[in-house]
């Protein structure tokens, strides 16, 4: 798939819709703490930073997993879990440097985002455009284009 949720935190206003739709679509429960995407907030600066599983290619969570339930799906590149075998030991949680693993206290297992199998609900419902779902090539290309544009604009001023 080579697609990823690209987060532009500058646009996030912390509304939390992504958390709600994620929890609802993945667990059927309207409870943000079950959401696979989290908004971290720094109360002072008015900063809201959405955070979700990045689907690392060689994920540290998989290395840490005591039951080898975390696998990379070759066709899609997703980091997926065999939920029936998870014993909820939470070793993946400490080993994820991003803190993107989520403990589902109802099922007593650890879960992560699976990009809704290719059509992430959080992105669809994000009202500000902070969340985008795009190909990695596109993400890189857009960044470069922004830089190029800025350089040219600066070049004109200089």
């Amino acid at each position, binding site marked *: 798939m080579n697609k990823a949720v690209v987060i532009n935190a500058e646009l996030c206003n912390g509304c939390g819709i992504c958390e709600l739709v994620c929890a609802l679509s993945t667990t059927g429960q309207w409870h943000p703490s079950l959401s696979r995407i989290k908004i971290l907030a720094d109360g002072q600066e008015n900063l809201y930073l959405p955070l979700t599983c990045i689907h690392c290619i060689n994920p540290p969570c998989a290395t840490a997993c005591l039951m080898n339930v975390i696998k990379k799906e070759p066709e899609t590149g997703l980091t997926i879990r065999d939920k029936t075998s998870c014993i909820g030991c939470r070793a993946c949680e400490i080993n994820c440097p991003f803190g993107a693993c989520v403990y589902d206290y109802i099922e007593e297992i650890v879960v992560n985002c699976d990009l809704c199998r290719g059509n992430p609900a959080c992105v669809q419902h994000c009202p500000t455009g902070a969340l985008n779902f*795009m*190909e990695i*090539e*596109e993400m890189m*290309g*857009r960044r470069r284009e922004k830089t190029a544009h800025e350089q040219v604009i600066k070049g004109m001023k200089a």
Partner: protein
Amino acid sequence: MYGYAGRLLEVDLSRNRISIRELAPEFARKHIGGIGFNAAVLYEELPAGIDPLSEDNMLVFGVGTMVGTPFPTAARTEVSAKSPMTGQFGTSNSGAFFGTQLKGSGFDALIIKGKAERPVYIYVDNGKAEILDASFLWGKDAWEAIDLLKSKHYGVEVALIGQAGENLVRFASIENGYYDGWGRTGLGAVMGSKRLKAVAVRGTQATKPYDVKGLLEISKECQELIKSSPFYIPFTKYGTMNAAVPYGRFGAMGTYNFSRGPLPDWEERAGRQVVEKYSSRHVACQSCIIACGHWVEVKEGKYSGLKIKDLEITPVASFGANLGLNMDAVIKATELCQRFGIDLVSAGSVIAFAVELLKKGIISREDIGYDLDWGDDEAVFQLLQDIVEKKGIGKILAEGTKRAADHFKGADKYAVHIKGLEIPMIDPRGRWSTWTLGMLTNIRGGDHLRCRNPIENLRYNENKHGYLKERFGFTEKAYDQLDMPADLKARAIDLENDTVDIAVMSRWAEDLINLFNSMGICIRPPVMHKIGPTVLARAYTVLTGMEITAEELMRAAERIWNLMKLFNIREGEEPGEIKFPRRFYEEKAGGEKLDEEKIQNVLEKYYEVRGWEMNTGKPKRETLERLGIYP
């Protein structure tokens, strides 16, 4: 497979079916790539006698072999189909970045068959292709459609038609991005007849060379070779506009529908110095070290604010010389043609033809609906739009000069075309050379771009050697450096008398250009001048790992040329068709009248050199056997 993407994509629009063909190494070696693939596919698979604008026609995009490597100027893609202009082999070549993306998406060629029920476009992304609805694009001009496609599919390169192609104007072009295009032979009309608005491609797959170090070395070597050409510096600076003054002086520039000779104010109006007036930036195609393209800004006058990539000799000749527009208007004309998706050459030529018919009283102002005159940009653009929309007389003119001439009694005298394809410039009356014979022998008709003496000298315009020879005009050193088999070189160039045998050189030049077009290399003079088959054979070997000699490469190029010739003969090409426009034999403009008999002599000499039958030009049996073609 090293060097090649290794697969050909076939899209059948009638059946809505996409299939992939594996590229067999023997096929690749035999036909090299680019135009070679196109010729082989069309010759083998296209039935004779079909209507070019019917669903039976096929459109092939063949990416040159070296495309997708750092080899200098390797950027070119050939598009071919049965031409709606000539009814024979239609083909056109363009650079920019489309080929790199198509090859990067995993295909060496794209073969389009059939006809869609409603407007569609093809989206190719890394080995996968989709036929998608194009109703949001239909009716849009090329630039708008590209914008829409690029915003929908990130990072695509687009080949598409404008309104001209949609409306089946016979000389519609396929546009290659905003500013480039496969202009000649009406391929846009073929695409339009298939209801195919665009092909958007995107790919990140790598071209894997056989010998990495070798490829790096040969790329560097060829960069240096090209740079060592005396044409290099002028071409990096002025691009094709270098030719504006010599052509103008020689009378090789077609002026006012080829009715007048050199224009007195031409050098001042359209000499290469105009590049400096309009442009300060250059634009390159993929891997090119010449960057002959200019970014042009019109800073004053009624077209002020117009910015495009332009100032090629072709629009300057077509609209500046042939129609008498001023340079601002020429730039505007280029923009319009790019947006409408119409061949600059044919459009300019058809309109010039109409102007002359009006002047000669063959058609009247009422036929057109407004005043039309040389240099009247607004009227010219109005007529251009009428042609694109097929309104009024535009409907007739949209069929091309040859077909339009049949409409008006007495118009044939003023119709400037070869085999139905209009002529951009290189009036043979002004300058007879290898190029001009190449216009006659050109498979697609109508232009000089398939035959160019690898070392052509634009300093001289001497016709003292009659039709069989032209002046060589280079030093012995240049002769020695020319990459040609020794015996052939000795036959083609007579150093003592400083002459070039036009027939022999034509054959070599055509094969060489065919080789360039199959390998995806540009035929700009600095490249033609320095890059020969020997170095290309090395490049082919390091890229593909297939050991090949210069001789085998040239034979492949010859094979491709013969395949195209056989295609034409199958489509009913008559020996009598192969002639210049009537007025070239009858009027003196640009230089002396042409001598039909002498031309026939050169032609026959050429046929002999090619191994074709005298008079008819059909490839002889032994020629075909030598080339491994078994029709």
